[in-house]
């Protein structure tokens, strides 16, 4: 394929991946990697690097739009970032030791989990008003805007949240995804933050997590500018459009179609890994 056709295809592909990723909550990386590998024949090692770039673009593009609304809990974000960033550095290191088929399998499992979590939708967890001892000491409790005015909420089980976040960091660096699904799970199910606060805080953290591991990928030569440049452009545009559309769209059907596509991609990645296509 010649350079200009490839550039334009990746540009359109990453814009679509980040647009749909931000609309469905699956993130740009989950869609971009299969697209690059299965459709455009890109080596998985380049694809993971490019996908981390898409993750940062999605996080940056969306945060530029959401940041003002007062949902993000910066204190919780910073505490948990310590764990995700540590996990990401470890994951990036491990990624250099294992072979491509293993990474493809890990990636597929992450896809299946994300698709399942996305289909299930928002959980019926009722946030608590109270915080436990550690959360109180760190003053993590806050409030968020609702229709009936400002609603205070408490935070619990910080150590469990940290452990899950560490795992999310490792997975993010290994598979080249944002692993927003695990981050949201850790915050709303475990730490009992309101869903909207969990998703915005997760988005705030995703870019930081990916940035931690992408440096390692850069030194390893997995960030190929001929592939990543169109991803930067497409990713930023796609996620900004996505963030603007999100409040106005009913995303239920989109999620279902998308989860099916993602599951299909996961199955194909798995098959390729097992028969030795990498």
């Amino acid at each position, binding site marked *: 394929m010649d350079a200009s056709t490839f550039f334009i295809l990746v540009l359109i592909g990453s814009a679509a991946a980040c647009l749909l990723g931000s609309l469905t909550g699956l993130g740009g990386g989950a869609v971009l990697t299969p697209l690059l590998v299965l459709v455009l024949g890109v080596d998985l090692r380049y694809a993971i690097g490019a996908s981390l770039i898409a993750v940062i673009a999605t996080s*940056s593009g969306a945060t530029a739009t959401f940041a003002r609304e007062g949902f993000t809990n910066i204190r919780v974000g910073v*505490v948990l970032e310590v764990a995700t960033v540590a996990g990401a*550095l470890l994951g990036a290191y491990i990624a250099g030791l294992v072979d491509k088929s293993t990474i493809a399998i890990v990636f597929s499992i992450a896809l299946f989990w994300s698709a399942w979590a996305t289909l299930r939708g928002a959980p019926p967890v009722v946030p608590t008003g109270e915080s436990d001892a550690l959360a109180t000491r760190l003053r993590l409790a806050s409030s968020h805007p609702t229709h009936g005015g400002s609603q205070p909420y408490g935070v619990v089980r910080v150590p469990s949240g940290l452990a899950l976040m560490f795992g999310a960091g490792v997975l993010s660096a290994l598979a080249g995804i944002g692993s927003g699904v695990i981050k949201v799970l850790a915050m709303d199910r475990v730490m009992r933050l309101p869903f909207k606060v969990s998703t915005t805080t997760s988005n705030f953290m995703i870019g930081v997590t990916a940035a931690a591991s992408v440096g390692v990928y*850069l030194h390893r030569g997995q960030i190929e500018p001929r592939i990543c440049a169109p991803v*930067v452009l497409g990713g*930023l545009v796609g996620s900004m459009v996505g963030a603007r559309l999100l409040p106005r769209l009913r995303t239920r059907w989109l999620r279902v179609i998308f989860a099916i596509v993602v599951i299909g991609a996961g199955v194909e990645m798995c098959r390729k890994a097992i028969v030795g296509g990498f």
Partner: protein
Amino acid sequence: MLASIACVLFGGVLYLVRHAGARVHVAPFEPAHEPLRSLGGIAREAARLDAAAWMQAGVVLLILMPMARVLTTLVFFMRRRDWVFVGLGLLVLGALIFGLAV
């Protein structure tokens, strides 16, 4: 963010003008050209108007954006003299710089 887009666009146009018909190498994996793998190398090659280096510079600027965001929160906690959180922020920032620089 605009600087990142500008670099990528400049490098991208330069690259497409020079190599529009060239084949892109996408598989099997070969590590990217050595200078494109470190910050100093990217700056040196960009000074020579190397198209790939300009695109890579845009990519690196995008990577710096989350770092800038951590720096902003760090300043926020410093103003409030919230030293525990300044420490946590420094830890995160240190890890990010470690990942990119070492």
